[in-house]
């Protein structure tokens, strides 16, 4: 009985929470034909918003995959006072309401920046906000893999004559790569959907700093539900493709087992 009930519950829940709402969005967008969806996406302001969102998200994923891995490395391999506190702080962007994050960033990098770095109403502001929000993804996916990594492998490489850099590149990195990719993928998909943290610092200037999620909200406010659904579908599609690619990479990495 257990299995049938379990599968049933899972499918029902997944349908109610994920599949039906997503299908509704796609249905809503496609109600007036594929041509209309494409047109709605190609509206100059939506297209600009999508472009900014995707470019910023790629940059964010690339930067955070490097920085997140470095932070995970330091947290796993180095000892320093206050390590437990730093480890806890990593999750703060997860825990904080994103609008609060936006407020903090605006206070820090806004027009009255105490650091004299004014990123308000600029694309760079959007990128910084997204960097902040998505950092935990890479750290938290790489960290456990690094913890589990067999240190004997590195020592074996040393005794076979490999230096630290060669050992890192040829032994450690390939073992971390699947986790890094998956963290980067999560950071990317989270970035393309981000609203709260970017909305304050970006100023939502159409054609300049307006991100896709804000563009969708704008369309809803001006009663263009179908247009909003069309842009949403575009985001959905991108996210879906990225998730599929991630899954393929994981399977490819898993072939060794």
């Amino acid at each position: 009985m257990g299995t049938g009930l379990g599968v049933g519950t899972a499918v029902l829940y997944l349908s109610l929470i994920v599949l039906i709402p997503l299908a509704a969005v796609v249905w809503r967008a496609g109600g007036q034909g594929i041509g209309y969806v494409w047109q709605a996406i190609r509206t100059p302001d939506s297209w600009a918003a999508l472009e900014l969102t995707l470019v910023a998200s790629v940059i964010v994923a690339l930067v955070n995959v490097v920085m997140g891995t470095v932070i995970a490395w330091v947290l796993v391999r180095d000892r320093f006072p206050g390590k437990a506190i730093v480890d806890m702080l990593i999750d703060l962007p997860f825990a904080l309401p994103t609008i609060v994050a936006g407020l903090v960033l605006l206070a820090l990098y806004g027009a009255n920046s105490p650091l004299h770095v004014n990123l308000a109403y600029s694309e760079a502001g959007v990128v910084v906000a997204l960097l902040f929000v998505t950092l935990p993804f890479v750290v938290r996916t790489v960290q456990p893999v690094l913890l589990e990594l067999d240190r004997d492998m590195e020592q074996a490489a040393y005794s076979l004559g490999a230096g630290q850099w060669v050992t890192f590149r040829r032994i450690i990195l390939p073992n971390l790569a699947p986790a890094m990719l998956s963290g980067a993928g999560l950071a990317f998909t989270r970035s393309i959907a981000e609203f709260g943290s970017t909305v304050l610092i970006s100023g939502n200037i159409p054609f300049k700093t307006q991100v896709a999620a804000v563009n969708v909200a704008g369309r809803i406010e001006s009663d263009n539900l179908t247009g909003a659904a069309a842009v949403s579908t575009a985001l959905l599609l991108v996210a879906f493709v990225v998730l599929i690619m991630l899954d393929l990479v994981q399977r490819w990495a898993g072939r060794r087992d």
Partner: protein
Amino acid sequence: MAIEVCDVNKSFGTTPVLRDVSVDISSGSLTALLGPSGGGKSTLLRIIAGLEVPDSGTVVISGVDATRLSPQRRNVGFVFQHYAAFKHLTVYRNVAFGLEVRKRPKAEVRRRVHELLELVHLEQMADRYPAQLSGGQRQRMALARALAVEPEVLLLDEPFGALDAQVRKELRTWLRRLHDEVHVTTVFVTHDQEEAMDVADEIVVLANGAVEQVGSPDEIYDNPANPFVMSFLGPVTNLAGHLVRPHDIDVSATERSGGTAAAVTRIVRLGFEVRIEMRIDEQDVWAQLTRGTADSLGIEPGDTVYLRPSPHAKRLASPGSGRPVQEPAG
């Protein structure tokens, strides 16, 4: 000498792990570092490999002072208990790793790797990943990988420790044969005295961070330097204040000169071997006899027998006053 370890000391925190350890290992030998866990034998092996740095003392490998050399520059092959296989590389690439790092020409790498895979009987497995191999196969791959770079010395840290009993026996016979073929100076760590005696030419007994005795398996078994070595190398029992090997006790059903009377409590028949458990004044003692000898005695539990050490028996005054000496584990 292939390896000269001189006055090495090493502590982890405040715990001393090695105390003034000096060991010489001759070229081409197959040496076992034998001792109970926590005795410092793995640490000594890792110091020879350069994976640990001694607090004081020197390590000389093939006449070169290697004490401050990095593991990369010692030209030492190291085999780990848990294989340390490069999980993301095929068997072929694992074995080729050391040669690729040394930037040897591709053709030479290919030739050498195939040679080694043949040596360890893994030629069919070249394209597999380590996860697709059994434990014994993984360890053979690790051995081929370590041998690929033609190391001055081959170091193995409990190489069979993670394998089941059957495979362990096979692999140690195989290691012995491999050593006879390859002749590389080999040092392996084990806590299993039978494994050490089976495989090694020379045994270094290490306990509590100090060398207890060095010698051939026969020397160490027949002439243990102290009660610890005697009881670690094989079974012992206590007869009249002395440690004696149970197979060195003569059992007689009739009284005779120099014999100690003992009451038989139990007779255990293990096929060829028969163990006779007895008591002398509240103290347990046991003797190991062949089945034929035991049968000809015709004794039963409750009988009184007379014991004395056989003429050439090695005896050591037992430590403390009649404290029972524990048999070694494993």
